[in-house]
């Protein structure tokens, strides 16, 4: 039996500065996971991934990452995605510099 689909967001890195970005429902790329479109349907997820991959001149390495609905929007389920939405733990660099993204 195929594994049940778990909710996803489309994420990638920005071509010019490499920063982690997320595809929003209104087709923007946001730096903030909370603004991402949380996709609960598998077929729709594949379509959104294709939408992302077409934007090769703006983004790099789009993929579907697991996420869950939180109070303020999607939240990561895995620590790797938690690091990606926040920044490294040895310095307050990356996203946590500009907008505080507390680790869950």
């Amino acid at each position, binding site marked *: 039996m195929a594994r049940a689909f778990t909710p996803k967001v489309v994420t990638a890195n920005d071509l010019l500065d*490499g*920063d*982690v970005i997320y595809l929003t429902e209104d087709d923007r790329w946001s730096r903030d996971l909370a603004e991402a479109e949380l996709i609960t349907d598998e077929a729709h997820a594949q379509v959104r991934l294709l939408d992302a991959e077409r934007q*090769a001149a703006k983004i790099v390495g789009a993929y579907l990452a697991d996420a869950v609905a939180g109070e303020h929007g999607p939240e990561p389920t895995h*620590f790797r995605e938690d690091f990606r939405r926040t920044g*490294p733990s040895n310095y307050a*660099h*990356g996203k946590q510099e500009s907008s505080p993204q507390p680790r869950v």
Partner: protein
Amino acid sequence: MYRYSEFDKAFLAERNAQFRAQVERRIDGSLTEDEFKPLRLMNGLYLQLHAYMLRVAIPYGTLSSDQMRQLALLAEKWDKGYGHFTTRQNIQYNWPKLRDVPDMLDALAEVGLHAIQTSGNTIRNVTADHFAGAAADEVADPRPYAELLRQWSTDHPEFQFMPRKFKIAITGSENDRAVIKAHDIGLQLVERDGVLGARVIVGGGLGRTPMIGKELSEFVAFDDLLAYLEATVSVWNQIGRRDNKYKARIKITVHEHGIDAIRAKVNERFLKVRPQFKGADMALLDEIKGHFAPPAFRDGSVAAFEGAYSNDPVFRSWVDTNIAPHKKADHAIVTISIKKHGHTPGDATAEQMQVMADLAQEFAYDELRISHEQNVILPHVHKADLPAIHAKLKEHGLATANIGLISDIIACPGMDYCALATARSIPVAEQIATRFDELKLEHDIGHLKIKISGCINACGHHHVGHIGILGLDRAGVENYQITLGGDGTETAAIGERAGPGFSYDEIVPAIERLIYAYLDLRSDADETFLQTYRRLGMAPFKAALYPEAQANAA
């Protein structure tokens, strides 16, 4: 120090201009990422978790003060004010912007540095003993040969699309400080009947299939060495596996075919390759050797050193741990620790880089080295200058007296930066260092090498740590496996796994139990952790690591 010729300068300028155009074509959409990726990797540019990362080669670990200042400039101008020295004598910048990278490469070229072949399936940056040219125990300085290898391997047409990456390390000493047995090819310079040559080790490597290198030849004279190496890489390039990237390194080829079969193939290939080498390489080596002539060592009294050593306990402690014997008795080799307790191993700020450059210029004949253990070395220092150097280092957080001790930890960037990582390394290293500093046990514990990797690829050399720590992802949670008894020197050994892994919160207490067990078990204060392990084996350490299992069995 090698000085670039007009040819070297023109080559690098052209290469950088090509890459600048490639970046422009990527940004304007003419190149897809699939097309651009191999091009950027050939120039050391990765895309990591949060940003791009530029890996700059420090060939055979040698830098002049001008070069170190330029590395500081890059950190300040195009990064976040620091750089990360790696386990392969590279420096990595963690936050460059794609548009800025061509300017960074041009700035590096101004001082004869580059990022060529620091990635991709090519012959990577050739690494060397970081005490080369200064060590009291070496047969010859390996760096001229390393520079010859750099020139030979750069853009070598036969070796641009190999099954996998290929790493060469070289040492001039029996005491192996360059981990030659964990490289695809390891070279140890040896002299036989007055002829200089090398013992050739092949098929070592860490990663998911750790292997200790095997002797391919006990002696190849310098005249034949380049042809012999070309034959070796060529044999692997032909028969190395391309069906599976995890089976592609030469260590697997050697393992599958056997060292005797590989030797026979290399010898056969060598006979074909040898006539193509008509002595131009030896002429070039002679010229390169001139660039590495030892400095004019100054004379003078060492009384100032002896006085400070007797009177200043902080200075004495630093000398006892961070100073190694120099081939000239009134000189010393200084290792500057980039492992301040609680800080990221191998990270230096732009200001610290400038301070080290100034010290090299004023006191150390303008030379610096980067070690695979992520420290910086002043290879030639008159002992009388040690107190002034120590005082300056102290002002800039660089005087930690911990070389070879428990807090002198190798750690890869791990999940904090690396796209391949499965767990963090840096905070584990920081916490171990902080904990044993608090316990004031570091000097009592003595010589101990802890090495931490954040994934199975083993950039943190965990397999050859006396204590190795491997960070994995177990069901979505960080989990750390401990190996014991590894050794990266001439008595190289792969560490043995102690048992089940520990969670992020449990790993530092586990290391603490291990160390207290060692302190109880050692025969006397001079017996190192590795010696105790070799004498007693795994059992008593396992008992300390897993007390519950012990209790349940009882």
